[in-house]
């Protein structure tokens, strides 16, 4: 997993990650949440990837959205969740979690600024 993460970080150089991110805070958050939503790796990879993206200049908003959506939204697992817990439940829960990832990212960063 760490091998794959470091391979991904090497293949997608800093310029690409900064080209993707850095447009506007809200767009960065949407992008981070979207990437996290479709990611299917171990959450440990999200922390490592998030840390490296942050070190590479990506905003904490986007990184937080990525980390949160990685573990709360499961587009890849959606068919399994729908089959076992109900289609209605699965779709609404994942939509809600996507929106929550955005909310949590803004709230976390604002709170950190408030507490210094």
């Amino acid at each position, binding site marked *: 997993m*760490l*091998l*794959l*993460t*470091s*391979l991904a*970080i*090497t*293949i997608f150089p800093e310029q690409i990650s900064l080209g993707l991110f850095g447009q506007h805070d809200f767009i960065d958050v949407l992008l981070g949440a979207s990437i996290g939503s479709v990611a299917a790796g171990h*959450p*440990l990879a999200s*922390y*490592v990837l*998030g*840390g*490296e993206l*942050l070190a590479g200049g990506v905003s*904490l908003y986007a990184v*937080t959205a990525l*980390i*949160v959506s990685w*573990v*709360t939204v*499961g587009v890849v*697992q959606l068919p*399994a*969740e729908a089959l*076992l*817990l*109900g*289609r*209605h*439940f699965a779709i*609404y*829960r994942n939509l*809600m*979690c996507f929106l*929550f990832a955005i*909310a*949590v990212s803004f*709230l*976390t960063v604002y*709170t*950190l600024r408030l*507490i210094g």
Partner: protein
Amino acid sequence: MIYGLTAVVDSELALRALAGFTQLLDKVLPALALVFVLIFAINLLLDPQRVRKYLGKQSGIKGWLTAIVAGILSTGPVYAWYAVLRDLRQKGMRTSLVAVLLYSRAVKLPLLPLLVHYFGLNYTLVLVLYLIGFSVISGLIMEKIEGVRAVPD
């Protein structure tokens, strides 16, 4: 295998990635060691039967707290928990508590040392608190949408 394929296409890129891996490993190894110890300890303490006892329809505040704690302590892939949660719902587990448990899984207790390592203690504490808070909100909303004890279709 992926590294092998990458080496065939671009050997220098593969070497750089490997070098990056060793640097990454050096940075995260201390935190990872703590992570593995915590995972082992949690797997010894938590089993689905124990969770089932405290998540029934009349569980009240205790049920909410149990769902949050169970989610935080749960390990393994989420799809393994779908089957357990389906079983529990059919036996009377509240819809809200299913959503709470699934959301509070976002708090990965064994991985917190790694989160602290990369983002700091303040960030970790604030994020964990918001995740727990939003797990409760997710439960309340899902119960409004689905009803107290909706059986999966």
